[in-house]
């Protein structure tokens, strides 16, 4: 018998029990749909995280002042005072893999403009910081190296700060007060949004010259961090090694002793975030795959019922010349047709679910064609796997017994 005839017979047999066929397919529809939607959500989330990390600059290195344990008490980040401005100059001078570096220190402050006020983080750095982080301005410009040398009272503000203090008013050239110290706004940064890797609002920030922060606000002359850009993404690992070695040497840390700083590589961070995204996608998809297996069991169940119900039909078919192979093919085809139809509808269901998630949650959902192809193949495999046993049972019926079956 040719394949077309077999499929036609299978379709007719399934058509005789429409309600039952549709209910059986529903298991596969939900299974395939869930797998597609979940994979889509996971892929979308991964892509978003990667884009945000790329936006931060993938050749970025973050050198932070370390933690230290004094008299058995563990102090927080930045509790060491050993990271200093000269370290940054040394990195620029002695690490060939490092391209540019910017020093940094942080504080927090209450910012006031007119009747509005806002509590935010205040970072002190140098103008090259904006290049290293590839962070452009939507209005105005950066403060200058001259401002740094003069410890001028100038500030660059993030979008969140601008919105809360100025709203629709023009902010450039206005004077704001940070902890009662007047600052002139020279630039507004382009919004970066919430950091996917860290989860904080990157636009809720004010950036001032480091000298201004150190001399007029915190009174500290050490750094909390140094931001370094490597010459390329590939060089970022080498830069990390070079900086660590240099700083251990400069801080006279004995071999075996703990660092009093840490160097974080954003390329690594990207990998970690990607790995986390992959694991999440896999987790979602495996939970969805469970429903696909349940759907497969549904097919097996119905096929077993069908074989029992149609015992006499099987007997007649064998009596008029159907071989074991013919009978097996017939029932296997029915199972595969069920699962393939279910798979097809499941794809539509999964795509519409993805579309709905994108629309309502504003979450990007990426459904790749590969996923659809895999879904089709997988649902077919479910049909073959779960249809095989019932089909085998049908084929191995004794025609005499089958014809006598009531």
């Amino acid at each position, binding site marked *: 018998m040719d394949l077309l*005839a077999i499929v036609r017979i299978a379709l007719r047999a399934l058509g005789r029990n429409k309600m039952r066929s549709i209910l059986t397919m529903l298991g596969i529809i939900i299974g395939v749909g869930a797998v597609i939607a979940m994979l889509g959500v996971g892929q979308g989330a991964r892509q978003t995280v990667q884009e945000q990390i790329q936006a931060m600059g993938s050749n970025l290195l973050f050198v932070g002042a370390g933690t230290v344990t004094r008299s058995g008490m563990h102090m927080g980040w930045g509790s060491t005072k050993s990271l200093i401005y000269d370290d940054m100059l040394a990195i620029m001078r002695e690490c060939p893999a490092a391209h540019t570096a910017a020093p940094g220190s942080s504080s927090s402050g209450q910012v006031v403009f007119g009747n509005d006020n806002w509590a935010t983080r205040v970072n002190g750095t140098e103008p090259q910081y904006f290049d290293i982080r590839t962070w452009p301005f939507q209005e105005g410009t950066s403060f200058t190296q001259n401002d740094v040398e003069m410890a001028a009272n100038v500030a660059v503000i993030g979008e969140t700060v601008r919105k809360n203090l100025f709203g629709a008013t023009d902010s450039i050239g206005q004077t704001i007060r940070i902890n009662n110290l007047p600052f002139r706004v020279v630039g507004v940064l382009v919004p970066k949004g919430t950091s996917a890797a860290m989860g904080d609002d990157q636009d809720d920030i004010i950036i001032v010259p480091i000298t201004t922060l150190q001399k007029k606000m915190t009174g500290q002359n050490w750094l909390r961090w140094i931001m370094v850009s490597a010459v390329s993404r590939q060089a970022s690992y080498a830069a990390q090694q070079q900086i660590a070695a240099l700083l251990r040497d400069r801080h006279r840390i004995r071999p075996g002793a703990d660092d009093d700083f840490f160097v974080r590589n954003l390329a690594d961070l990207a990998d970690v975030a990607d790995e986390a995204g992959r694991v999440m996608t896999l987790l979602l998809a495996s939970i969805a795959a469970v429903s696909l297996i349940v759907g497969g069991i549904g097919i097996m169940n119905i096929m077993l019922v069908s074989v029992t119900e149609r015992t*006499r039909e099987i007997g*007649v078919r064998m009596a*008029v*010349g159907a*071989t074991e192979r*013919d009978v097996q093919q017939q029932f296997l085809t029915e199972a595969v047709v069920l699962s393939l139809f279910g798979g097809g509808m499941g794809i539509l269901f999964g795509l519409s679910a993805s579309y709905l998630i994108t629309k309502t949650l504003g979450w990007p959902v990426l459904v790749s064609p590969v996923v659809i192809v895999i879904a089709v193949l997988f649902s077919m495999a479910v049909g073959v796997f779960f249809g095989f046993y019932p089909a085998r049972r049908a084929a191995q019926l004794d*025609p*005499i017994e089958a*014809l006598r079956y009531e």
Partner: protein
Amino acid sequence: MATTSQPDMKATIKQDHETIILVREVHKYYELGETRVHALRGVSIEIKRGEFVTIMGASGSGKSTFMNILGCLDKPSAGRYLLENIEVSSLSKKELAAIRNHKIGFVFQGFNLLARTTALENVELPTLYARISKAEGEKRSREALALVGLGDRVAHFPSQLSGGQQQRVAIARALVNRPSILLADEPTGNLDSRTSVEIMDIFQNLNDEGLTIVLVTHEPDIARFAKRSIQFRDGRIHRDERIQTRPRASEVIQNLPKLED
């Protein structure tokens, strides 16, 4: 080749007197738990092309077992069975399926038509498993239905047909692959007496055309329409005789009351 004369056979039959079924010392045992049931105890028989044989016997006499072996649904435990000179007992399951498809037509007591499937599609069933085209299969099926007088009922479902009509569809199905032999297992068992005679009329006509028929029945009224009667008892052939005065079913019908009466 045997040359026994069979005066009531028509001269138009090709290759008459050719042996079509040859059974020699066939035994069949079943294992039922500890006990062994001896269903056939050495059956030997020869059936020639163009014969019309009825097999009679009480239940448990071995006639059903014998029919299953004749129909290649079962194999003998011992002994030989040659169908058109093919040694059936040595064939594989797949080869047996092909024999059933090409050489044997089955008619059952319970009709065994597929429900919710038209008469035409039911008749087409054996052609699906034969190596013939779809178009050829449909053409032959229409011819077979016309032959049993149901040319105008091809699109009817079994539920829309009377018992006699359903059995005629089943006969058309048995004929569609042009078998060498038609095996009927109590084909009139579920039918009233008038319809039973109508079915026997079809069988007599088919036999006149040269078709070999073996029919199991326990009704002597039905058995008398055949040419030869074989009686089974306790797994053996008890009696094997020619029927001397065979009535024509078409004439008997004239004397039967119609259903409407």
